[in-house]
């Protein structure tokens, strides 16, 4: 439970942070809230020689509207996401999800940038970002680029980030008022990662579902976009039987590991049940 030795750096700007990361090379890691990285370091699953602390980058902690998008700075804490009245009104799914992450102490420090950049399939925000079709602003030595959340996750702890790059912000297209969304997470206790969880986003018009998007947490190496399940909803009149069918379609793509949370068959089934319940709740059925 004691990490290996490391040097500590506290840059004052994004440019300085990126320069440091590039100078120090592979043995350097950015640290944001530290609530994923430090536990791994304590178990010596990660032993970076240099930590580049992003907490000096005050300009990365913001939540603002830009046209039809909400932009959230990477260093915004999960607590700040919960506390934002604007987010609660326009993107209640984010607040709902953040409230199901860990516990208040962790949320005061853990950042949304760290949560999406970490690449742990247990993190809750990545599936939600995929569901919302968010884009990540990524900055490196060569400049900045945008990567869709749906393209970002490649394997457990393996993302589209290149060494020396940072996620600086998350851009989320705000769904129209009246949209329906929910995040259902099954867990063993407070502070636990999901046995399975599902994020859903829907638009309903004229008694029919006109848009649907579903993503799953912790039932694969990466968060999963359940396309077949959402396709099955579009154009249909919502009812419970339909939600069940969509749940089954979501379960079909789940490929969870067997661990203390349960065997594969159970966790796969739970991906379906969480999807079904999220749909039912979002649709008010």
């Amino acid at each position, binding site marked *: *439970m*004691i990490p*290996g*030795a490391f040097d500590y750096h506290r840059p004052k700007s994004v440019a300085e942070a990126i320069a440091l990361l590039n100078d120090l090379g592979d043995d350097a890691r950015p640290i944001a809230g530290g609530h994923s990285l430090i536990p791994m370091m304590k*178990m*010596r699953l990660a032993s970076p020689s240099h930590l580049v602390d992003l907490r000096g980058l005050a300009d990365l902690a913001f939540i603002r509207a830009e046209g039809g998008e909400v932009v959230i700075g990477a260093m915004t804490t999960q607590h700040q996401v919960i506390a934002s009245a604007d987010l609660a009104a326009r993107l209640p799914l984010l607040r709902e999800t953040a409230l199901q992450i860990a*516990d208040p102490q962790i949320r005061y420090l853990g950042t949304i940038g760290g949560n999406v950049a970490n690449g742990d399939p247990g993190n809750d925000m990545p599936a939600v970002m995929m569901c919302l079709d968010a884009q990540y602003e990524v900055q490196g030595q060569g400049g900045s680029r945008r990567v869709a959340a749906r393209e970002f996750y490649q394997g457990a702890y393996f993302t589209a980030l290149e060494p020396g790059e940072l996620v600086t912000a998350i851009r989320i297209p705000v769904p129209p008022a009246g949209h329906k969304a929910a995040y259902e997470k*099954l867990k*063993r*206790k*407070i*502070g*636990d*990662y999901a*046995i399975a969880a599902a994020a859903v986003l829907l638009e309903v018009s004229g008694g029919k579902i006109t848009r649907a998007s579903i993503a799953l947490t912790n039932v694969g190496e990466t968060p999963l976009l359940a396309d077949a399940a959402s396709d099955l909803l579009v154009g249909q009149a919502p009812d419970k039987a339909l939600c069940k069918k969509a749940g089954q379609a979501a379960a079909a793509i789940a490929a969870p590991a067997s*661990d*203390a*949370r*349960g*065997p594969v068959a*159970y*966790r796969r*089934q*739970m991906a379906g*049940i969480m999807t079904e319940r999220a749909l039912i709740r979002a649709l008010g059925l």
Partner: protein
Amino acid sequence: MNDMTPNQKERADKLEGMGCKRKRVEDVRFVQGKGNYVDDLKLPGMVFGDFVRSPYAHARIKKIDVSKALALPGVKAVLTAAELKPLKLHYMPTLAGDVQAVLAEEKVLFQNQEVAFVVAEDRYIAADAIELVEVEYEELPVVIDPFKAMAPDAPLLREDIKDKTDGAHGKRKHHNHIFTWEVGDKSATDAVFAKAEVTVKEMISYQRVHPCPLETCAAVASMDKIKGELTLWGTFQAPHVIRTVGSLLSGIPEHKIHVIAPDIGGGFGNKVGAYPGYICAIVASIVLGQPVKWVEDRIENLSATAFARDYHMTTELAATKDGRITGMRVHVLADHGAFDACADPSKYPAGFFNIVTGSYDIPVAHLSVDGIYTNKAPGGVAYRCSFRVTEASYCIERIMDVLAQKLGMDPAELRLKNFVRPEQFPYQSALGWEYDSGDYHTAMQKALKAVGYDQLRAEQKAKREAFKRGETRELMGIGVAFFTEIVGAGPSKNCDILGIAMFDSAEIRIHPTGSIIARMGTKSQGQGHETTYAQILATELGIPAADIMIEEGNTDTAPYGLGTYGSRSTPVAGGAIAMAARKIRAKAQMIAAHLLEVSEYDLEWDIDGFRVKGAPDKFKSMKEIAWASYNSPPAGLEPGLEAVNYYDPPNMTYPFGAYICVADVDVDTGSTKIRRFYALDDCGTRINPMIIEGQVHGGLTEAFGIAMGQEIRYDETGNVVTASLMDYFLPTAVETPKWETDFTVTPSPHHPIGAKGVGESPNVGGVPCFSNAINDAFSFLGSTHIQMPHDNWRTWMAAEKLGLHG
């Protein structure tokens, strides 16, 4: 106390004696973060030890190379079995008559077993250095399942004792067998079963769990080579025994060993035994002449220090058609892990598991227990229960429900029908115990009434019908459990540890101004001894509890005692303090008689002093008597007011209780909501109702953890997969149900103050109650027994097996 005058009541209230909801005095320091734990200790020149542990569950050690670790600046020493062997310290004796490797010599037998001990100037260097110790292993086949361990061709685990055909408790029947323990009348029991009208049989497993105290195990050893004295601070539930063992092992005379247990952050049985960390810290301190600190981390605590349970109980009941139990038969396969390090009284290799007939008048019974070695961590401690009592309680309370189901009888009714009746006490059980007192029917009926049992059953019936009609996906379960514990080990005729009888002790000293210091042989780990012992004294001696200091844990100053576990503090040391107080009161009476110039027979005790019978204004308070004892003792009487008592209890005590739980199970996710939990405890005389309630809350929370999620689980290669709190279920306040507590009072007839002990009752009664609730939810579908823990996925699997998912 209803016949007190207002004046007497006011004086009694001032004492804050027995029955008072006195606030815990120790909390003043704990809530301010000013407790003093082992890890708070800092000594000049202190260095730190850390273990190299085995990644394998079973492997031969081919080579250990410590050179790189020794070369790291700041590393002071690296101990391996090679260094300990010449001192004959590479193995240490266990309390169960086995030996346990301190540092593995030729083989490792469980994952995270101690292989080398690195000592360095600070913790960080030690942690780096353990990665530099190179150990070459050759993997061997692993045995995790105790049933497979007894197969004829199962791998031999304990090569060190392979030629030992006799264990501490008789013949060993297999190379992985430790002992067989038999109690009861086998032929009479078999005969009853042969002609029984109804029988039930179930394999009931109580999974391996871990006490997981908030503070892990730790020690600081400091050898003063000039004086030849060793001081050992540590997380010891039984400091005096640790000193004796330390002396026997090290050869240092007992009076030159000072063992100090400072504040302890929870023990629950985890801190009774001796661990390699203690021995290595001592040896390292002797070698280096510097104080050595060893503090384990959470993973080490969960994976290497003493586990609990792992009992696999094949359980049978015989009964008449109308529900009278006629016999009980139990066979237990007890998985002890790689070494038999159970902390039981010497004569009881399966603890007091023979309390397994529970609260019922069962005419004949037979019990046999086979202890088995596997490639798992050693232990088998009494996790918040007297020795193996929670296993026994789970066994009987689960099989009672199975029988009720078979008979088509309500589980509460079956219990009421078979309870030992009040007039049968003292009651001789078929498996050899004498229950001191009880009124089970009253307790059960009070519980049933309090929860509205009949309405609950009616609601359940309606819900089951709705479930069958497809209107709900929720099942309602009602758990009933009635437990009888056996605590207060114990009478010297039954109980010893390493040959030392399990008495306990108190030494009371009254100062001239009438305040008191009392020292005890026990050691609180959160139970609130500083508060409750003072209350016993306050009532016995008429001195306000606020003027009494209780001290424990320093073997130089405290009288010898066997420590705190198995709910023994109140039954044993509580007896000692009351008896010592009575010696003082007898002397005080002589002094009062002298002061009041009357015969001591003319005096009577009145709350806080003595008064002359029939002359109420002629009175001497204990404070005045205390002063007089130093100032003007009667001629011929020794000055001072002090007493010591070593209390050898005449019997165990038998607390009991009736618990009822209502649970709602979501069959589609397997998650469970505990809607209600009602706990009625009868622990005899109640010393501090608030502390009792706190103990019950804590014990129920642990029972909830065990029943609903805790498991130390190994994969088939022997990796322990639940070794951190990410995976080992420790409920938080959010998951913890709301507790409703209640009580009846049936004093122990043989205990000086009638108290029985309560700290462990809620764990003993709680686990079966939760489990019965979950099992009850599914029983109408034909399920008889679902194994613990009842976490989401297992409950879902149970539903799946019953075809509930369509």
